[in-house]
């Protein structure tokens, strides 16, 4: 098992009180695999990434959580617990490539900065050659020229390739991609995903793909975890979860996806989209029982009282869901 995250809980102290962003979230990511972490906005999926990286905002407080990366354990409640891993064991690709590069330094300088840490002692020329090679590997056109260009001279997709090249240079054991294609044109999405997969295959790392798009997960990921209001409701291989979602929320998420072949009406108001009624629960006061109870279409009396555990789906140990209907009486 390459990467494991156990019992991660994060609070944010806000003016209106303490918000529980994550409650006891655990994940296992296999080496060489891509693990999709899905959830709607506010579900806490980015908080997982930033807690792992140790880049949480100042008002965030990790109350519990351990990460095991390449055999070493890290107590995430300590500030900067994983500082040593940044740029070495872990790397990250961000949501907005337009903003994630420093506008007043060249692409080359920023790539070489990563190498300063990864290969200390190597001279500038070697670093430059390695950086250029990385740009070529993520299939950025004209890598030699790009080295001397500034971020504003590149398109969003090209900048995201630069960030992927940074990740490539740092040769991480775990790559976290936080909504890497959300800010980009749909046409660029497939290319960027292909480069991320290429990077994974090249260095054999584990990838945590954080996204709100089930489509991306079913297309590119090996495993999936579903996050809702700071709790993990289901996890398993993509095939298992797709074939038989263990949790009503997962099923409803799949129902919301618009298949590409569904019939469209010329009059847009005639189109029917499935939506999940209701809102996320108040993060400051967790209701008793199942967290999804208020929006569930198959809940029963116990759901409002009994907090469900993680139960295996179809007696398969690698597929579990947090729903009382799966509890064996």
């Amino acid at each position, binding site marked *: 098992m390459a990467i494991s995250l156990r019992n991660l809980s994060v609070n944010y102290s806000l003016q209106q009180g303490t918000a529980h962003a994550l409650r006891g979230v655990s994940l296992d990511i296999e080496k060489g695999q891509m693990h999709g972490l899905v959830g709607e906005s506010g579900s806490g999926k980015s908080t997982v990434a930033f807690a792992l*990286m140790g*880049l949480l905002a100042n008002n965030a407080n990790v109350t519990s959580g351990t990460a095991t990366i390449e055999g070493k354990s890290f107590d995430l409640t300590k500030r900067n617990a994983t*500082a040593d*891993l*940044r*740029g*070495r064991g*872990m*790397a*990250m690709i*961000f949501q*907005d490539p337009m*903003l*994630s*590069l*420093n*506008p*007043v*330094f060249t692409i080359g300088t920023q790539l070489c*900065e*990563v190498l*300063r*840490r990864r290969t200390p002692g190597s001279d500038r020329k070697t670093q430059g050659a390695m950086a250029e090679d990385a740009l070529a590997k993520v299939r950025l056109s004209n890598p030699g020229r790009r080295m001397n260009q*500034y971020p*504003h*001279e590149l398109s969003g997709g090209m900048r995201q390739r630069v*960030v992927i090249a*940074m990740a490539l240079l*740092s040769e991480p054991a775990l790559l976290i991609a936080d909504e890497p294609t959300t800010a980009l044109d749909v046409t660029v999405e497939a290319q960027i995903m292909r480069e991320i997969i290429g990077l994974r295959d090249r260095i054999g790392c584990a990838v945590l793909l954080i996204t709100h798009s089930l489509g991306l997960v079913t297309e590119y990921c090996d495993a999936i975890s579903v996050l809702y209001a700071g709790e993990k409701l289901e996890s398993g291989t993509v095939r298992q979860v797709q074939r038989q979602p263990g949790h009503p929320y997962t099923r409803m998420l799949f129902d919301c996806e618009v298949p590409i072949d569904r019939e469209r009406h010329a009059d847009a108001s005639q189109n029917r989209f499935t939506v999940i009624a209701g809102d996320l629960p108040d993060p400051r006061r967790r209701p008793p029982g199942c967290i999804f109870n208020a929006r569930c279409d198959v809940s029963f009396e116990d759901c409002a009282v009994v907090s469900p555990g993680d139960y295996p789906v179809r007696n398969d140990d690698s597929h579990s869901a947090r729903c009382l209907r799966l509890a064996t009486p």
Partner: protein
Amino acid sequence: MTRSQRTAAFIASRLASVMLTIAGATLLLFLMVRLVPGDFTSVMLGPRATPVLRAQITHDMGLDRSMVEQLWLFASRAATGNFGEDVVSHRPILDIVLDVVPNTLALAFSALALAMVVGIPIGVIAALKPGSWLDSGLALLSISFITTPTLVVSVILFLIFAIGLHWLPVAGAGNPGDIADRLQHLVLPSVALALGWVGYISRLVRAALLDTLAELHVRTLRAYGVSEYRIVGLYALKLALVPVVSILGIGLGDLIGSSVVVEIIFARPGIGSLIFNSIAQRNYPVVQACIVFIVAFYIVANLVVDMINAGLDPRIAAGRG
């Protein structure tokens, strides 16, 4: 367009607007002097107005010709540095001005350099731990530096070193040719002129750095393990210096302006004390020449600041800054 072409276009457009401002300033200066009520030769010459000098001034400045011609004469002469001959010393006015200019430039640039060398690190230190006791202490220090008028700083420094200690010379610019002596004479005036700017620069750097540190590219560097010192002192600082440098350009005018006070108190020859003395003697042609020079310097300095900023931030030359 390639990057160098864009930079050239940027410089050209800036130069054009600089030329316009200089032209406007010259016009304003011309009108300012001409709109003084009363006989112009008396205004220009004051108590020295003999019939001979009156005739000379009338001829030199073309007072018998139309206003437009006079303006053209004034502007074309100012552009070529021909300000005529001083009626007091009979030397070319340009020479009188150029004699003292190096002193003022040395004062202004040493003050600016001192302010940056001290002010930038203070700003960086304050930004490393915002809200700490160190930060709030430095904030109060900076603001007292800013608000204490140059006049007060100069007077107090003069008192301490002229009446109390006798470590440094307090009057003059030093013997010509003796560099060590000239540098010693430069210390107190530079400190007096720089103190306010130390506070100003440190506050600007702190504010700009904190803004920059909240940007997302800083998170990228953190995610790749770049040390906080390198992030603050290199990557964020370069970006944060852009607004600081812009404001420095605007402030250069104040610097030249306050140098009058400093030059008077420390009895230093310079363009400020030259203007002061010429006004006291009602020797307006010299005053005019000094002001043309100062305005041109100020505007050119602003142009240089724009160039520096274009070098710091490539987006400025690309027109996206």
